[in-house]
C-alpha cells in the first residue's frame, strides 16, 4: 500500500498545482518533502531483506504490479532526495527563467513516473511509466520553446520513443524465451530458449542504453540536457539517465548476477565492458573541448554513465566475484547523481546572475560568489574523485573491480584499466578547466545582477553535506544499503568481499593524487596551447558518422523507392497500352467492313457458333482451374 501512496503524492501535487495556479510556490517543496520523508522511513525496512509488493488486480492481460526491494529503495530515496533539493532551488531559479508553473507541473508528473519506474513489479508496468516519463520530461527540454530547445526536444522525444520500442521488443522476446514474463525482483530466470533469451537481453541493453546515453546511442543527450532549464538539466543528468542504468541492472538480474555466464552469453559482458569504456572515453574527450558549461556537464554525464556501465560489465563478467563491479556501479549511480545535480545547480546560480553559460566569457567570479564557489569546489572534488569526497569511494571500488577483472580475465582487459586511468585524468582536466575559467582567470566583463537568494545556496549546501558525509564514511552507505541490494540481486559473497576492502590505503590514495595532478597539468597545457578550442572535423565525430550513415540509408531508400515507383508506373502503362490495344481490336469486330479480323473471315461464323466457342473457352478455363492436378 505504501508504494501506491508514495506514487499518489506527486499526483496529488499535480492536482494542487492545477487548482492553485496563482499561489503554487510552496507546493513542490511540501510534496517532495512528504515523499522523501515517507520514502526514507517507509522503505527503511526493505534493506533488511523483505521486499514490499502490491498488486492492483485488473482483469485481462495487464496487471499493475509494484514491488520494492533494496535496489528500488535506493533509487526511490535517491530520486526523492534530489527532487527535494531541486524543489528548494527551482522556485527562485524559475522566476528568472519564466513559466515556473508549467515547469513545476512537469516536475511533479515526472516524479510520479520516475517513482513508478523504480517501484514497478513487472517489465510492462515499468514500460508504462518509462513512456510517461519520456513525455513529461520532454516538456523540460522544450521549456524555452526556442529553435534550439525544440530541435533538442525533437531528438530527445525521437530517441526516447525508439528506446521504448526497442525495450518493448526485448520484453516480448524475453516473454517468449521464458514462457512467463519474469517479474522484477524475482532473481534469475531459467530460459527455455537460451539463444532467444540472450538476444532479448541484448535488445534490452540497446533499449535502456539509449536512455543511459551509451555510446553510440548518446547523440541526443548533450543537446537535451544542456538546453533545459537548469533544475531540469540537473534532474535529467542526475536521475533520468540513471533509469537506463536501472533497467540494465534489472536486465542483468534476469541473466543472473553472481552466476558465471555460460559460453553463449559471455559476449554480453564483454560488449558491456567495451561499450562502457568507449562511453567513458568519448564522453570525456567531448567534454574537454566544450566551451558551454552546461554542455560540458552534459558530456560528463555520458562519461560518468560509462563508469556505471563499465561497472555493470565487470559485475557480469566476473559472475560470483563481480560484487565489486556491481556495487561500484550502484555506488557511482548515487554519487554521480549527487555531484552532477550540485554542479548543474552551481552553474545555474552563475547563470541567474550573469545570464551566461559560455565559460570563456566568465571568469574571476569567486570574489562575488564565495559561497557558491566553495560549494562548487566540493562538487568538483566529488566528480574528480578527490579522497575525502564521495566520488573517490565509488571510483575506488570500480577500480578494484576492473583490476580484479584484469587479473583473472582475458588479456585485452588491461586496456580497459589503462583507459580507466586516462578517463580519470580527463575528468580532472575538464573540471579544472571549468572551475578555473568560471571562478578564476580574467574577471568577466558581463554585468552582474543581484537577483540571488540564499535558497539557491541552501539547496547546493544540502547536497554538499551529504557528499562530504559519504566521502568521509564511505563504508556506512556501502554496508547499510548497497551490500543488501547487491546481495538481493544474487551475489552472495558481497559482504566478505567488501570486508576486505579498505578505502584509505596508500596505493589508491596515491593513484588518485597522481591522476588529479596529471589532470591539472593537462588542463594547464590545454588552456595555454588552445587545444581545447580544437574540434574534430565533422566526418570524424560519431555525430558526423551517424549522420553519414543515416544519409546513406535515406539515399538507398530513395533509390529503392524510385525503382518501385518506376515498376508500378510501367505496369500501369503496360495495362493502359494493353487495354487500349484490346479495345481498338475489339472495336474492329464492329467496324470492320471487309468482315476480316486477324485474317479470320467472320462471315461464316453465326451468332450461335460464336456463343458456343465462347462458352467452351470459359468451361475449359474453369475446368483447368477446378482440377488443380492439371496445373
Amino acid at each position, binding site marked *: 500500500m505504501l508504494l501506491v501512496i508514495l506514487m499518489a503524492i506527486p499526483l496529488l501535487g499535480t492536482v494542487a498545482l492545477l487548482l492553485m495556479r496563482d499561489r503554487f510556490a510552496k507546493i513542490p517543496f511540501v510534496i517532495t518533502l512528504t515523499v522523501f520523508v515517507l520514502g526514507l522511513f517507509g522503505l527503511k525496512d526493505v534493506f533488511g531483506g523483505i521486499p514490499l509488493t502490491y498488486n492492483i488486480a485488473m482483469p485481462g492481460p*495487464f496487471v499493475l504490479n509494484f514491488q520494492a526491494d533494496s535496489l528500488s529503495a535506493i533509487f526511490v530515496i535517491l530520486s526523492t532526495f534530489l527532487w527535494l533539493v531541486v524543489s528548494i532551488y527551482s522556485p527562485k531559479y524559475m522566476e528568472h527563467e519564466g513559466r515556473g508553473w508549467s515547469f513545476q507541473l512537469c516536475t511533479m508528473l515526472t516524479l510520479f513516473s520516475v517513482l513508478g519506474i523504480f517501484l514497478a513489479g513487472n517489465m510492462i508496468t515499468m514500460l508504462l511509466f518509462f513512456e*510517461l516519463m*519520456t*513525455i513529461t520530461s520532454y516538456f523540460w527540454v522544450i521549456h524555452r*520553446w526556442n529553435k534550439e530547445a525544440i530541435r533538442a526536444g525533437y531528438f530527445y522525444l525521437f530517441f526516447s520513443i525508439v528506446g521504448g520500442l526497442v525495450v*518493448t521488443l526485448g520484453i516480448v522476446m524475453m516473454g517468449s524465451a521464458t514462457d512467463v514474463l519474469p517479474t522484477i525482483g524475482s532473481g534469475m530466470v531459467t530460459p527455455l530458449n537460451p539463444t532467444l533469451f540472450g*538476444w532479448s537481453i541484448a535488445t534490452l541493453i540497446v533499449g535502456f542504453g539509449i536512455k543511459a546515453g551509451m555510446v553510440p546511442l548518446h547523440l541526443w543527450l548533450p543537446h537535451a540536457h544542456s538546453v533545459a532549464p537548469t533544475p531540469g538539466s540537473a534532474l535529467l543528468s542526475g536521475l533520468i539517465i540513471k533509469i537506463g542504468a536501472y533497467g540494465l541492472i534489472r536486465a542483468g538480474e534476469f541473466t543472473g548476477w553472481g552466476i558465471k555466464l555460460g559460453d553463449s552469453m559471455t559476449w554480453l559482458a564483454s560488449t558491456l565492458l567495451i561499450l562502457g569504456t568507449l562511453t567513458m572515453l568519448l564522453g570525456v574527450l567531448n567534454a574537454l573541448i566544450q566551451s558551454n558549461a552546461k554542455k560540458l556537464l552534459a558530456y560528463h554525464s555520458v562519461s560518468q554513465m560509462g563508469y556505471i556501465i563499465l561497472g555493470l560489465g565487470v559485475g557480469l563478467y566476473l559472475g560470483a566475484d563481480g560484487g565489486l563491479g556491481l556495487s561500484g556501479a550502484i555506488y557511482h549511480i548515487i554519487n554521480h547523481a549527487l555531484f552532477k545535480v550540485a554542479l548543474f545547480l552551481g552553474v545555474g546560480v552563475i547563470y541567474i546572475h550573469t545570464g551566461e553559460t559560455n565559460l570563456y566569457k566568465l571568469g574571476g567570479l569567486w570574489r562575488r560568489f564565495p559561497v557558491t564557489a566553495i560549494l562548487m569546489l566540493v562538487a568538483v572534488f566529488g566528480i574528480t574523485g578527490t579522497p575525502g569526497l564521495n566520488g573517490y569511494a565509488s571510483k575506488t571500488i570500480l577500480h578494484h573491480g576492473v583490476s580484479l577483472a584484469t587479473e583473472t580475465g582475458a588479456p585485452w582487459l588491461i586496456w580497459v584499466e589503462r583507459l580507466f586511468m586516462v578517463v580519470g585524468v580527463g575528468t580532472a582536466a575538464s573540471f579544472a578547466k571549468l572551475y578555473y575559467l568560471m571562478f578564476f582567470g580574467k574577471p568577466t566583463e558581463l554585468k552582474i545582477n543581484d537577483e540571488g537568494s540564499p535558497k539557491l545556496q541552501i539547496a547546493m549546501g544540502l547536497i554538499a553535506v551529504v557528499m562530504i558525509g559519504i566521502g568521509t564514511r564511505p563504508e556506512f552507505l556501502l554496508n547499510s544499503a548497497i551490500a543488501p541490494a547487491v546481495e538481493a540481486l544474487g551475489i552472495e559473497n558481497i559482504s566478505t568481499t567488501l570486508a576486505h576492502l579498505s578505502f584509505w590505503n596508500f596505493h589508491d590514495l596515491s593513484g588518485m593524487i597522481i591522476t588529479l595532478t596529471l589532470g591539472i597539468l593537462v588542463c594547464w597545457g590545454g588552456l595555454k596551447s588552445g587545444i581545447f578550442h580544437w574540434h574534430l572535423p565533422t566526418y570524424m565525430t560519431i555525430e558526423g558518422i551517424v549522420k553519414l550513415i543515416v544519409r546513406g540509408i535515406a539515399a538507398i531508400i530513395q533509390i529503392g523507392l524510385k525503382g518501385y515507383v518506376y515498376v508500378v508506373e510501367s505496369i500501369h502503362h503496360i495495362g493502359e497500352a494493353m487495354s487500349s490495344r484490346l479495345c481498338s481490336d475489339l472495336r474492329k469486330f464492329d467496324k470492320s467492313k471487309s468482315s476480316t479480323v486477324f485474317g479470320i473471315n467472320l462471315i461464316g461464323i453465326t451468332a450461335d457458333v460464336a456463343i458456343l466457342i465462347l462458352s467452351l473457352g470459359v468451361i475449359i478455363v474453369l475446368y483447368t482451374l477446378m482440377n488443380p*492436378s492439371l496445373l
Partner: protein
Amino acid sequence: MLNLVLALLSGVVGALIVAVMPKVRNRIRNLVVLLFTILGAVFSWRVALLVFAGKNIKIAGEFAGFSWSINPDPLGVIFALIASSLWIFAAVYSFGYMEGKHNQRTYYTFLLLALSVTLGVAFSGNLVALYLFYELLTLVTYPLVIHERSPEAMKSGKKYILYSLSGAGVILIAIVITYSLAGNLDFAGNAILAGSTGSGLNLLLALFIIGFGVKAALMPLHGWLPGAMVAPTPISALLHAVAVVYSGAYGIVRVVYSVFGHELVRQLSFSRIMPWVIAFTILMGVIIAARQNVLKRRLAYQTISHLSYILLGVFTFQPWGLAGAIMHMISYSTLKVSLFFCAGIISEQTGEKNIDRMRGIGWLLPKTMVALSVAALGMIGTMPLNTFWGKYYLMKGSVEGGMWPLAVVLVISGIINAYCFIPVIVDAFRGEKVQGDTEKGSKVNLMLAPTLLLSMVSILIGLWPGIVWPGVEAVVNWFF
C-alpha cells in the same frame, strides 16, 4: 435473431427515411441519422453479447441457387462492434463537418446504407453472403467517394470502383472453385477446405488474397486508397481507414481461418511468401507516407502500412499473433479515426492541408493538436495507448512463430512512424500563431467532441486492456 435483423435493418430504414424525407431543417435530419446509427450500434452490441454468451444466431436462405446465411461468430461480432460504434462518432462529426456543404441528403443516405452493408459483411455466415455484402459495400460507398463531383473526385471514384470490382471478381472465381472442391461454403464448424490436398490450393489461396487484398490495400494492390481520400473527411476516416479496408482484412482473416483453416494454410508454400509481402507493405507504406506533404495522404499511406499489421498477425498462425491482429484492429481504428478527424478540423478551420505550413497551428487549435499528438503516439505504438497492446502481441506472435524478423519490422515501422509524426507534433507548437478560426462555435464543437472522446477511449483501453480482452480471447479460442 430479432436483434440481428434489427441491427442489419436499422441502417437501411434510416437511409430510406432520410432519402424520402421532405426538405426539412438539418437538425431534424441529423437527429434521425443519429438515432439510427445508435440503434445499429445498440443492436450490434446485443448481438455481440448473445454471441459471446455462446448463442448461435442464424438466418439462412436461398439466393439464385446459392444458399446464403447470416451467422455471426466472435470475429465478425468484433468487426461489427468496431464499425457500428465508430459510426456514431463519425455521424456526430459529420453534423459539424457537413454543415453548409452541398448534397447532404445523398451523403447521409449512403452513410446509413453503408452501415447496414458493413454489418452485413461482419455478420455473414458463409462465403456467398460475404461476397454479396462485399460487392454491395463498393457500390454503396462509391457515391460517398465522388461526393465532391470534381474531376479529381470522379477520377478517383473510377479508380476505386475498378479496383474493388476486379478484386471482387477474383473472389467470385475463388468462391466457385472452393464450392466445387468442398461443396459447402459455411464458416461455422470446421474450416471449409480442411483436409484437402493438392498444389492447386496455393493458387486458390492466392486468388482469395488478391481479391480481398485489394480492399485490404496490400501492396501492390493499394492504388485506389490514396486517391479515395478526396472524399469528405468523415468518409475517409470511417470508410477508408476502418470499415471498407477492414472488410478486406476481415475477408483475409476469414479465408485463412475459416475457409482454409490455419493448419492447412501453414503447409501451403504461398503462405511462406505472404509474411514478406506483408513486411514489404508495412515498411513501404510508411516510408511513402513519410514523403507525403498533404496530411490526409500521409495518413492514407500509413493506413496501408497499418492494415498489414493485421495481416501480419494472421500469417503468424499463432494464437498470440491472431490476438495481436484483433487487438490491433480494435485499437488502431479508434486512433486512426481520431487522426483523420483532426486533419478534418485543421482543414476546416484554417484551410490548411499541407504539413509544412502547419507550423504554429497548435496555438490556434490546442485541443485538436493534443488529440493528434495522442493519436500519433498511438501510431508509433507507445505505451499508454491501446495500439501498444496490438503491437506487443503481434511481436509476441511473430517471435513465437519463429519469425523474429517480422518483430524487427514492426519496430522499424514504429521508428519510421515516429519520424513521420513527431515533426508534425513538434512543429505545431512552434513559431507564430497561424491565422484561422479558433475552436469556438457549435460546428467545431461537434467535430471536436468525438475526436477527444476517441482519444480518451484509446488511453482507457491502453491502460486497461482488460476491457476488450474478453472479445479478443473469444476470437482466439474460436479458431484455436
